[in-house]
């Protein structure tokens, strides 16, 4: 039982870090630029497809990753320039509608380019083993690598937003674009950079999971809602919040699914517990979100209205 618990914690951490990578971009774009970008999940998907393509073309995961990054920058810049830029001054609902349109475009385009069948990306050799954990348990090296990469990005972002001038300008721009620009800052360029940064992070997340998950057209959508949950639980615009929110969601999801039924069995008879567990399991994340928002209407680290 203890073994399982430790393993699940690691799994939770890995999922959490991954969610964070995606959520970080979303919370930046959302909290700082005040743009609700439903197409953020699409960027995650595009990252996975990009690495699948490049890795297949070069025969190497690492080359694939290396080529994916500049491609992601281009994707980010183009999307920002063509659509997002025109949405800054618009209402959230307009943004929802336009980025919803982007999602449809992207999903269909990806299907036209790469087909409907899922693709796969081979795992790099050096990261493909597992390391022994206590007892008979092993843990895949690749997942450890994801955890490390995610934590590094988290630390970098946290410093950037809270302790650098760019971070200050971003936060300032979030609340009052026109005054920031009237004080001499090229806000458009700044926002383009932030959006692209968020896009690259999402693409990176997609690229990192490609060797573990199948690369398919639905992957952006399934992750989008979860990412929004993370962002909202953490408090919009808060990198710290996104990080803790991601871990919380991931741990509740991984541990709750396994230990929830066990706990339920303590209080209910097995059949009822099984039934109850099955009803509750998929709701778990949503219940978590509802409870947190009930207690803290602006998320864990959000600014109350």
């Amino acid at each position, binding site marked *: 039982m203890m073994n399982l618990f430790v393993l699940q914690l690691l799994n939770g951490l890995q999922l959490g870090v991954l969610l964070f990578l995606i959520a970080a971009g979303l919370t930046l774009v959302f909290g700082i630029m005040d743009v609700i970008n439903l197409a953020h999940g699409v960027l995650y998907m595009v990252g996975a497809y990009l690495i699948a393509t490049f890795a297949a073309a070069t025969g190497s995961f690492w080359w694939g990753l290396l080529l994916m990054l500049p491609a992601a920058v281009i994707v980010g810049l183009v999307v920002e320039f063509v659509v997002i830029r025109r949405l800054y001054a618009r209402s959230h609902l307009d943004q929802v509608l336009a980025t919803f349109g982007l999602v449809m475009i992207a999903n269909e385009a990806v299907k036209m380019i790469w087909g409907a069948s899922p693709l796969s990306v081979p795992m790099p050799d050096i990261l493909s083993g597992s390391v022994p954990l206590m007892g008979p348990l092993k843990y895949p090296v690749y997942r450890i690598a994801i955890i490390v990469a995610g934590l590094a990005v988290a630390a970098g972002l946290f410093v950037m937003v809270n302790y650098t*001038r760019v971070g*200050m*300008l971003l*936060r*300032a721009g*979030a*609340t*009052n674009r*026109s*005054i*920031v*620009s*009237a*004080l*001499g*800052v*090229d*806000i*458009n360029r700044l926002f383009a950079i932030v959006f692209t940064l968020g896009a690259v992070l999402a693409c990176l997340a997609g690229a990192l999971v490609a060797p573990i998950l199948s690369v398919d057209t639905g992957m952006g959508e399934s992750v989008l809602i979860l990412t929004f949950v993370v962002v909202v639980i953490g408090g919009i*615009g808060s990198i710290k919040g996104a990080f803790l929110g991601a871990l919380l969601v991931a741990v509740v999801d991984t541990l709750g699914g396994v230990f929830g039924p066990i706990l339920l069995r303590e209080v209910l008879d097995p059949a009822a517990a099984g039934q109850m567990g099955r009803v509750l399991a998929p709701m778990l994340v949503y219940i978590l979100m509802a409870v947190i928002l009930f207690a803290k209407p602006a998320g864990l680290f959000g*600014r109350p209205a």
Partner: protein
Amino acid sequence: MLDVSGLEAGYGESQILFGIDLHVQAGEVVTLLGRNGMGKTTTIKSIFGLVKPRAGRIMIGGKDLTGVEPHRIAMAGLGYVPEGRQIFPTLNVEENLRATARPGKWTIARIYDLFPRLEERRRNMGDQLSGGEQQMLAIGRALMINPQLVVLDEATEGLAPLIRADIWACLKRLKDEGEAILVIDKNVDALTRIADHHVVIEKGCVVWSGTTREILATPEVKDRFLHV
């Protein structure tokens, strides 16, 4: 320094400004006067490109900057204290000052010197300040970009008499240091003590302009256009 000629601007379908002419020489203090809703703020916003000018020309330091993006106006040496403070609520006091700062003689230390109150509140978020503190911060923020021309739109609104007096003293000091100032304020009396030139607008047109001496000599101006 700043030459505005024939400026027309408005919001949506309504035109507010109908040809404003305004000139600020280096080292000069100019006031923009007029009753509520006459277009003072709109004039300032058009100068900064926050409202797109529909006609006319805005020259800064001899360069035509009509219709360029706001940040380029600011880079050309204009500092802005907007009406209604508009400080950044999600930044603390010090960050508000630092975020848009550019190197020059105005430093955080000098700002704190000018407004000790801000130093006491340096860790407060922008929206955790009193109205007057916010106003001080807005002025400090504009100075921190070390402009050659400071534009103040109702910068003393909501300030206690003592602080207001400090601001006037500060403007005077700025003027003495050779900085140009364009100021909107309802304390016309106080303004006349530091300003060189005055421009009075009504319904989006310049209806009077002249020097301090002239305005003091013609009380009708105040009566007719300013109702003071």
